[in-house]
């Protein structure tokens, strides 16, 4: 079979999973930023500093595993990308940390309470530009993002020519305002803000949200799966009190999801930590248009029971299982997942991110188990 025919077969398989149709084989995709360089003997410094190396080693990993595709394609420098998602400084391997150490998001107060007003007065984009020097060299950031914009078409083409599908192929990420602000303020300060100055926080959130919605609606057309991350980690149900979650988290998720769906983009709810309490709310989102992408903490039986007829799930092999379990443990986990979903609405994938210390034999067992148990028709 040609690589183009393989691509089409894999593309159809993933699209069917999103549409909750019966598949011939449960699709399996790779996700794991730091595992790829570690597996290929590349230092984290090289991976973090050289955008081309980052792309090449991710593609090499996907080829070596021969999965159906990849959650995120990789390519570009990960630390500026994380800075943009977290509004935080990062410890970078080879600069602030040993060359083969994992990067580290620094939990520290960088944004001030006055910055909420600044966001309202300046607008989100202008504020973000003025904020950047506090967390990263703006020139470095600009060059990194420029590389991504310039090279994304080449990266997407390379995956396609090799026969592999990129699920999140939209040239951006979307974050709810809660996550940006929590990262910039630090968790401790941000939750105090929610208690003491909720109106000020909400005013800033609304400005961020309005600009993001406008950007979504102006998204240029593009092909492929058309997936995009809608991230959530500290806005998880396991952390945030329901009253606040209903005010500061869920309405923003709904609005972003509806905007994305309205322009034909598939929201991939990349949600870390446990969201079980609020799974029922997923019934409010458009059916067969979104993917839940949890990390192993959210109760999938509950998910299947509540929204299994409305939404696909991409995940959720736990990081700790990949790092510390055995191939037998991985086989058992994959077998259970496949049995639960019965061939519909499941895309097997490491939950969140295969960690740096993933055992290669566990990653290989994950793919082998997916192929063995995932045969449906």
């Amino acid at each position, binding site marked *: 079979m040609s690589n183009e025919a393989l691509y089409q077969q894999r593309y159809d398989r993933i699209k069917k999973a999103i549409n909750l149709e019966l598949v011939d084989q449960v699709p399996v995709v790779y996700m794991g930023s*730091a595992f790829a360089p570690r597996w290929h003997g590349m230092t984290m410094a090289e991976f973090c500093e050289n955008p081309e190396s980052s792309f090449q080693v991710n593609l090499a990993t996907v080829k070596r595993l021969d999965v159906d595709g990849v959650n995120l394609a990789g390519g570009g420098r990960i630390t500026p990308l994380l800075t943009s998602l977290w509004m935080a400084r990062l410890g970078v391997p080879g600069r602030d940390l040993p060359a083969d150490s994992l990067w*580290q998001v620094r939990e520290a107060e960088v944004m001030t309470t006055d910055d909420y007003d600044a966001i309202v007065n300046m607008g989100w984009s202008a504020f973000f530009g003025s904020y950047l020097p506090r967390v990263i060299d703006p020139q470095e950031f600009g060059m990194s993002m420029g590389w991504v914009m310039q090279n994304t078409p080449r990266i997407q083409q390379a995956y396609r020519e090799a026969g592999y599908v990129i699920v999140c192929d939209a040239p951006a990420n979307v974050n709810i305002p809660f996550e940006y602000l929590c990262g910039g303020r630090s968790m401790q300060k941000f939750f105090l803000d929610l208690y003491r100055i909720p109106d000020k926080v909400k005013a800033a959130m609304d400005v961020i949200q309005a600009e993001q919605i406008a950007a979504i609606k102006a998204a240029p057309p593009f092909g492929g799966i058309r997936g995009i991350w809608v991230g959530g980690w500290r806005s998880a*149900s396991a952390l945030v009190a329901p009253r606040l979650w209903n005010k500061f988290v869920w309405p923003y998720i709904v609005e972003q999801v509806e905007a994305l769906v309205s322009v034909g983009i598939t929201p991939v709810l990349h949600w870390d930590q446990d969201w079980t309490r609020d799974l029922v709310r997923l019934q409010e989102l458009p059916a067969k248009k979104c993917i839940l992408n949890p990390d192993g903490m959210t109760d999938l039986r509950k998910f299947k029971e509540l929204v299994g007829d409305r939404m696909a799930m991409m995940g959720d092999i736990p990081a*700790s299982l990949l790092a510390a379990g055995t191939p037998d443990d991985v086989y058992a986990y994959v077998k259970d997942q496949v049995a639960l979903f019965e061939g519909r609405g499941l895309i097997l994938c490491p939950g969140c991110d295969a960690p740096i210390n993933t055992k290669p034999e566990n990653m290989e067992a994950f793919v082998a188990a997916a192929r063995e148990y995932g045969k449906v028709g």
Partner: protein
Amino acid sequence: MHLLLVTGFLGSGKTTLILSLARAAHESGRRAAIIVNEIGEIGIDNQLMRQLNLDVWELFNGCICCTLTADLVTTLQKLDADYAPDLVIVEPSGAADPRNLLNALPYYRGRPLDGIRWITVLDPLRLPMLLEVLEPLITAGIRQADVLLVSKTDLASSEEVAAAEAAAREINPAAPLFTVALASGLDAALAAELLP
């Protein structure tokens, strides 16, 4: 090898408690190790710890807590193999659901653990506010605890301390509860109670 998990929201006094417990363990002749999220951030002086015959290990989160739990298990295994401590004190991220750890520990493959003790530290000055905004996280930490410790009794009023005690007991009436002013040091008798 005993495992002592010390949880509590950021700023509740966990690090002070951990250092006090580590010193107490060392003075009682036990080989102890500490696992923290980020050494630089919380100000543990690694050299000082080594002088005390303690080993301090740092977890790298990458960006989020799923990676952290994976690192915890492999770090525990490495500690067990290379250092064979009698006691490992773990400070999990204050920014994550502590149940993440329980889900990860079954994958630990070192010497069987002699026991796991979970201490949750509560800041009486902020507990009402934290229960208002982070109720699921704070409640889970209290509910899972084997021992509850209300800290900062030197800074909080007696009413605030009593309210924190009442709130904690309502969620977890079975766990022993102590009150302490960590800034003035940990009483030897209380340290003995807290250490496994």
